[in-house]
């Protein structure tokens, strides 16, 4: 299981813009590198990240090989109601990782 980390504030005021930081442990092999013997290393990257807030999609991103290894992504969302944020990464070779974070809206 891939190691993924998300950073979401535990509490927020209603209507407040909160910053979310996500990090996924992945080499993001570009498909342009070669081994010492000249064989091309096949591409193996995370293709997308989807963030849902109580089941509603609030953010989505498509990654390309030009993302650095262990892709880090920071974005924002409005704290609308208490609930859970779910993050799903999907990628090449059937890569899939999910992480959830609870938020309490005061």
């Amino acid at each position, binding site marked *: 299981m891939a190691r993924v980390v998300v950073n979401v504030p535990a509490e927020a005021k209603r209507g407040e*813009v909160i910053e979310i930081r996500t990090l996924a442990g992945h080499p993001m092999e570009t498909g342009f*590198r*070669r081994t010492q013997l000249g064989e091309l290393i096949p591409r193996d990257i995370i293709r997308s990240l989807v963030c849902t807030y109580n089941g509603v999609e609030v*953010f989505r*991103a498509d990654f390309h*090989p*030009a993302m*650095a*290894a262990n892709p880090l992504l920071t974005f924002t969302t*409005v704290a609308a109601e208490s609930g859970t944020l779910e993050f799903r990464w999907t990628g090449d070779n059937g890569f899939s990782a999910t992480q959830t974070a609870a938020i309490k809206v005061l």
Partner: protein
Amino acid sequence: MITRRAFLLLGVVGTAHAQLPPNIGEIRKKALDEAIRKVVGSNPVRQGRVKLDLPPLIDNGNTVPLSVEVQSPMTAADHVKAIHVFTEKNPQPYVLSAYLGPRAGRARIATRARIADTGIVTAIAQMSDGSFWSDSVKVIVTLSACLEEGLI
């Protein structure tokens, strides 16, 4: 310990690697234009409203922190729909496409990219009214991404 055979092979591969077509600059420029066209279609792209922030001098192209901020009220009527980041000199021009909506609250993303060579990095924002805005930054890369194998 490297065998003689492997060493000779390395030489062959190294040469093949170094022989990029002479008009590689043009090819990459064309690929970048095509990639941007694919996103914006025939709409004009205007300068402004977007702020792309990344260090002007990059020691290591493998991890380049960058952030994109777009001036927008982020309401249901007027918000940023998508932010795209492109580079000029990479083998492929795409870096990232982020899709936001009014629930983002603020149009700001930050990430880390790989940048192959000294050149231009461009961020394009698509607004909910269909207009496109962009910002470009010229960066100098001392250690390129993608070349740590083969050429050293």
